[in-house]
């Protein structure tokens, strides 16, 4: 009797399950994204982390963004300003944006020029600690000409006026929501920072810092019938390999971001047939930063890795010969083959794209030259000791080499250690958790900004398709130190008058070809002084599920730039 009952129960449950799967045959409108670094805020002005900027980019938007070909596309504006259409002043001192009049915030109110003006005021407030300040460099004022016209005035002629409000790093915030969050109060407005009201396709429904973000479709979105997905979840945590596995092998997620994983591992996962791997080249370069300041651990907090106007030089990395030898000894092709595959190319420049900006003066670095490196060191007086390590005047060529914890990066570290061993340089490796290394916490000794090591490796890039703002990063004044809370883009602490004066020339040059030539020269100064050793021009690598359609990877702006167009096809 019992057995029969069990049998009937089993049969019923099988039938029930069968009908369930029938029902779910209609298309799933939940989109699951995996960012192995979890978003910690949704206000891009308070975080420099790509994860935060991308997570925010589907809620709040700039006036224009970059498409997959690095072309500017208007979003909240009606057109891209040019000198021809009169929106950029002849003297390059101002730029005018015309806002679309049909844009409403997700709370139903109208987007007006007041919001744009406020966003500028918000970020440039002295006490705000806005990380997007770079976008507003040289901006004198942002003026609301009328409700739907905004003029941005520059303090000096701006040959590249597309810093403010172009690209997802510089979006428009809602005045109503953020009006009480100026200056020191910026960090306190957690409600606004976690649940920003935006014009994008989605609205934040639930935000758990460093864990999960849930969004739902914005009913006021400007395009009828979009977005297709009703719920979007961004889950954070894990590492690049487990993220790739979740999309490619187990199919739990629809999309995973930034997959710095060994090519054979990725290939193996892809063979499961659940998804595909996409790559897009932008301006990302994996590089080794060479510390120009002394990082001796015995120095106190105010001197260690602090520039001190050039009076704190590194004991041996301040010698250009040593730096050149370090770069020459590296076989970049092997690093690509082992760690990156099709997602990387050897590079000798810090500006690897767009094509016209790429310098051709440094190509010799692409071939490893151990003999030449040894000769340079020998000539400079660095002599090999009995332990095989070169030394001069009691200073040994022994470097501490740090990077974030990632299997590919540790592999690269080991390979480079072997290459440097051949030229008599001893290397100690260190890996730091990515959340700490890139976290930028001024209280932690292990951030890339503090640079408490001789050399460190990570990827850097510039936003958009114009490196004008990016090259300004290497100015002497941009060195991070305790006085500026360790904020500043000149991480390697390289500094030269030649560079700074050339930069001044750049800001006074308007001819496009001349500007390109100067930017190439600036790239050459950085590379030939070996403040940085460019290694690999990296593509963005993401994985998406086979059922996800309408996806286009973008190397120049947020990868979620077309999320409103995404749909599912089983």
């Amino acid at each position, binding site marked *: 009797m019992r057995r029969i009952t069990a049998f009937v129960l089993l049969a019923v449950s099988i039938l029930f399950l069968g009908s369930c799967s029938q029902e779910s045959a209609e298309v799933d409108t939940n989109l699951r994204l995996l960012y192995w670094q979890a978003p910690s805020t949704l206000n891009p002005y308070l975080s420099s982390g790509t994860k935060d900027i991308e997570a925010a980019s589907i809620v709040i938007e700039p006036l224009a963004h970059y498409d997959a070909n690095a072309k500017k596309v208007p979003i909240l504006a009606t057109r891209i300003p040019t000198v021809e259409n009169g929106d950029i002043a002849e003297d390059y001192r101002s730029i005018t944006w015309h806002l679309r009049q049909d844009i409403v915030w997700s709370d139903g109110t109208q987007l007006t020029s007041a919001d744009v003006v406020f966003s500028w005021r918000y970020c440039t407030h002295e006490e705000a600690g806005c990380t997007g300040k770079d976008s507003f460099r040289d901006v004198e004022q942002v003026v609301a000409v009328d409700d739907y016209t905004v003029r941005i005035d520059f303090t000096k002629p701006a040959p590249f006026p597309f810093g403010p409000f172009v690209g997802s790093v510089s979006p428009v915030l809602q005045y109503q929501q953020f009006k009480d969050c100026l200056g020191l109060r910026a960090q306190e407005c957690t409600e606004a920072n976690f649940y920003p009201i935006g014009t994008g396709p989605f609205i934040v429904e639930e935000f758990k810092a460093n864990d999960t973000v849930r969004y739902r479709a914005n009913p006021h979105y400007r395009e009828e019938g979009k977005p297709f997905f009703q719920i979007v979840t961004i889950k954070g945590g894990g590492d690049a*390999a487990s993220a790739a596995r979740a999309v490619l092998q187990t199919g739990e997620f629809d999309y995973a971001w930034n997959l710095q*994983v*060994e090519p*054979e*591992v990725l290939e*193996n996962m892809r063979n499961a047939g659940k998804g595909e791997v996409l790559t897009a080249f932008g301006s990302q370069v994996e590089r080794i930063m060479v510390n120009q300041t002394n990082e001796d*651990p*015995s120095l106190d907090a105010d001197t260690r890795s602090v520039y001190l106007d050039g009076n704190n030089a590194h004991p041996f990395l301040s010698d250009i010969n040593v730096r050149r030898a370090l770069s020459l000894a590296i076989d970049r092709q*092997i690093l690509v*083959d*082992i760690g990156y595959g099709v997602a990387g190319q050897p590079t000798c420049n810090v500006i690897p794209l767009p094509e016209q900006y790429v310098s051709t003066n440094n190509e010799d670095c692409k071939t490893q030259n151990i003999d030449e490196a040894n000769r340079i060191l020998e000539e400079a007086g660095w002599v090999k000791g009995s332990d095989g390590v070169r030394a001069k005047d009691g200073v040994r060529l022994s470097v501490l080499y740090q990077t974030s*914890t990632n*299997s590919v990066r*540790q*592999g690269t*570290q*080991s*390979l480079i*250690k*072997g290459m440097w061993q051949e030229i008599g340089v001893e290397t*100690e*490796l*260190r*890996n730091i*958790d990515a959340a700490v290394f890139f976290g930028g916490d001024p209280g932690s*000794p*292990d951030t890339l900004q503090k640079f*408490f090591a001789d050399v460190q490796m990570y990827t850097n890039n510039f936003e958009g398709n114009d490196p004008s703002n990016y090259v300004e990063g290497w100015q002497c004044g941009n060195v991070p130190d305790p006085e500026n809370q360790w904020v500043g883009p000149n991480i390697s602490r390289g500094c030269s008058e030649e560079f700074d004066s050339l930069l001044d020339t750049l800001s006074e040059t308007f001819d496009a070809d001349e500007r390109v030539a100067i930017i190439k020269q600036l790239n050459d100064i950085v590379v030939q002084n070996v403040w940085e050793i460019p290694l690999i021009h990296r593509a963005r690598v993401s994985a998406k599920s086979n059922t996800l359609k309408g996806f286009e990877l973008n190397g120049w702006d947020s990868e979620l730039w077309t999320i409103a167009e995404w749909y599912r096809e089983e």
Partner: protein
Amino acid sequence: MKLDKLARAGQSIQEAREHPSPWMIVWIALKNHKGALVGAGVFTFIVLAVLIGPLVYSIDPQLTDTAVRNQGMSWQHPLGTDNLGRDMLAQMLSGGRIALAVGFAAMLLSLGVGTAIGVVAGYYKRLDGPLMRLTDLFLALPLLPLLLVIIMLFRDTLRAAFGPERGIFLLIVLGIGITSWMQTARIVRGETLAIKEREFVLAATSMGTSGLHIITKHILPNILSPIMVSATLGIANAIITESTLSFLGLGFPPDFPTWGRLLFDGANFIGIEGATARVIWPGLAISLTVLSVNYIGDALRDAIDPRVRNK
């Protein structure tokens, strides 16, 4: 040792057999414990392999050779190679040294601290309260976060003083040692409290024997059994903690092979031709070491404790 003494005292070996010394009895009991024998065999093999192995098998574990990546087992590379062409066997041997060195050193440290605190707390009533509260305090500390903080705070100082590898070794041994003595201390205290009330201790006290003498001559030998067990468990515990730290990417420098790190690095390569074994070898080594040590500890307890032994 004891046997020698007996022999020197002029008694014949025959006599010694008829009245075997306590250690002899322990040995006989151990011999009959199959698990202990197999465990001891495996453990001895591992210890010998990591001690002598690198001398015989002299390939540098850190040497990268990109021509032979992700290879399976072969004569050149008995356990294959990893994705940078580093020899797996060489890495396993070198990693085993670290694992065992950390295991033993941390075990000795925690055993020393634990026994000292336990005996003192048990014997001197005045100190019992404060010491046991201290033990509770340490028990309440979460081990991993504490180790992470310790590593961040003292890494640079120790690195400057002892070099990167020895510095972090000391740090990890100290870290594991001072965070794992509490169980030993509690057990030892309990045993001491019981032994203290026995007649022979009372007799010794009434003869005016000093406290230190009573502890070393009368109490410690009687609580050896729980201490031994703690010791074996301590080794296993320390090896696993070190593996955890390496697995998290902390601990030793990333090119420094330890079993935990080899496991961590290999995990992503499961399913790739020639590379799947990468994750099996270190996993197997950790499991075998810990298991064999546990078996030995188990058998030792049974053998030393007469109540269990005679059952």
